[in-house]
Structures are given as structure tokens and as C-alpha cells.
């Protein structure tokens, strides 16, 4: 059971990483990075590491995404077209 979930989530994570580095749309790359953190925290929990899972959930999918978005806003100030 655990191995099925880990395999499926791992494949989805690899696809998300591929999307994050290959896409031209920066916002899509940020969202894909958020997906990677999300699934990574589930996988850490399955490997019996709740501390790491909580850190990944709080920092990886919450704070890092938002700091990326703030940075995107700072470098795109005044440029109103995506």
C-alpha cells in the first residue's frame, strides 16, 4: 500500500520538476515547485519522518512559494503584461 502511494507520488513529483524547469511561464514554474514540496512532505511522512514533513509543509510549500511570488512582483514592477 505504502509502496504504491510512494511510486505514484514520486512519478508525479518528477513530472512536476520537469515542468518547473522546462516551462517558459514563471508563475507556472513557481506553482510546480509548490507541488513538489507538497508531495515531498507527504512522502516524508510516509517514510516516518514527521518532523521533516512538517518543515517541508511549512517552509517549502508556504513560505518559499510566497517569497518567489514577491520576488516576481519586484522584478516585474511596471510591466503589466505577463
Amino acid at each position: 500500500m505504502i509502496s504504491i502511494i510512494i511510486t505514484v507520488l514520486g512519478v508525479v513529483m518528477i513530472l512536476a520538476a520537469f515542468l518547473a524547469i522546462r516551462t517558459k511561464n514563471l508563475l507556472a514554474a513557481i506553482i510546480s515547485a509548490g507541488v513538489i514540496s507538497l508531495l515531498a512532505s507527504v512522502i516524508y511522512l510516509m517514510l516516518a519522518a514527521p518532523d521533516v514533513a512538517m518543515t517541508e509543509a511549512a517552509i517549502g510549500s508556504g513560505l518559499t512559494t510566497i517569497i518567489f511570488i514577491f520576488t516576481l512582483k519586484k522584478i516585474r514592477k511596471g510591466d503589466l503584461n505577463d
Partner: protein
Amino acid sequence: MIKRIFILLAILGLILMFLPFLRDFEFHQELGELSSQYVEGSVNDLNSQNVVTAVIVTYRGLDTLGEVTVLFLATAGVGFLLRKKKTSLKSRGSSELLQTGSQFLFVLIILTGIYIFTHGHLTPGGGFQGGVLITTAFLLLILADTNLKFNHKILLFVESISGAFYVIIGLFGVLLIGMNSFLDPAILPLGNFGKLLSAGAIPLIYSLIGLKVGSELTTIIDKMGGE
């Protein structure tokens, strides 16, 4: 074309290098010498239910002090590099639901953060995670209203007081127990196993770390996100 072939070759080489790890992989059924010592010591000597917390705060306490210092330096760097500028660009206000909901959820997130870092020795999580939760609460307020002003004196006060007390508690160990016991949590009574007031000074140290991390990251967020 040549570039792509080289990239492909490099990836193949990496796969060949990592293949033995995949083939010979096996779960460790028994703990090693050092880790079994940590597990027994944290349960018997320190009364801490969460072994990770005991390792981070006690056995590797100096490393944690170093990490907090690194975070302080990062905050100082961000504060030095990112100056706030007045922009003429007008930003759209947020919806009423977000404004009301953020004020309501602010309290809930702060309470959860305090729960996380005071229960660091009982449940997963601890000072860093609790501090990030507190930061997220302030972040929600920034997202709801970009013109929000934080009181920097309070942030500075909390940050410096918690950092100073962290070192002072460590020095109490040297003073009360012995020369080699900087940051020893046994300066307070150890209490009963599994209760909130147990594991000596670990909850106190983790609360201080949580406050310090929370105020530092809030400063970073304020510098980056505020208009």
C-alpha cells in the same frame, strides 16, 4: 546537438553512479551505536518524548545556535539590500472576505504556532516550524492589506530579547552543572515523561528559538512584500 549528447552522457554517468545505491538498498532494522545512544539518552536522561527535539536542542545545541545566527545574518543582509521604495503603481484592494478572514485566521495561526513550539518535545515540530507559522500569520495580513505597517521596535525587541535569553540559558548550564554542559536542559526539573512541563529547559529553549525565528522571518517578509 553536441551539447545535447554531452548532457545525455552526463545523465547516463550519474545514473550508473547511483545505480549501486538502488540495487543494494535495504532498510536498517537496527539502530547504529550513536543513534541508539541518542534514543536511550533522550528518553532516560532528558525525559523528552521526541528524540529529534532532544538531538537538536541538547546534543547538537551549538549547531542550532549557529543556525539561528545564520538566520540573523540573512535577515540583516535582506534588510540592508532591500530598501523600501515609494511606488506610484496603485495596487488593487483585497476583497472583504479576505480582509475579514485574514483577521480571524491570524489568531488561529498564531495559536497553532505557539502550540507547535511549546509542544516541541512531545509532538513533531518545534521552534523553527512554529516560527514559520507565526511568520505566515503576519504574511496573511500583508496579503490582505499591502499598506500594513509593522512596529519595527517590537520586532527588534522580541528578536534581541529571545536571542539573548537563549545564550543566557546556555550559560546557566555552565554555571550550575559544570564546565562541559553549555545548553544542558537539566538546569530545570525534568518532570514526568510525556507531560508538557517535562524535559527540563527544552520547551523554554524551543519557545525562544520560535520567537526569534518568527520575528526574523517577519522582518524579511515585511521588507520583501510591503509597499
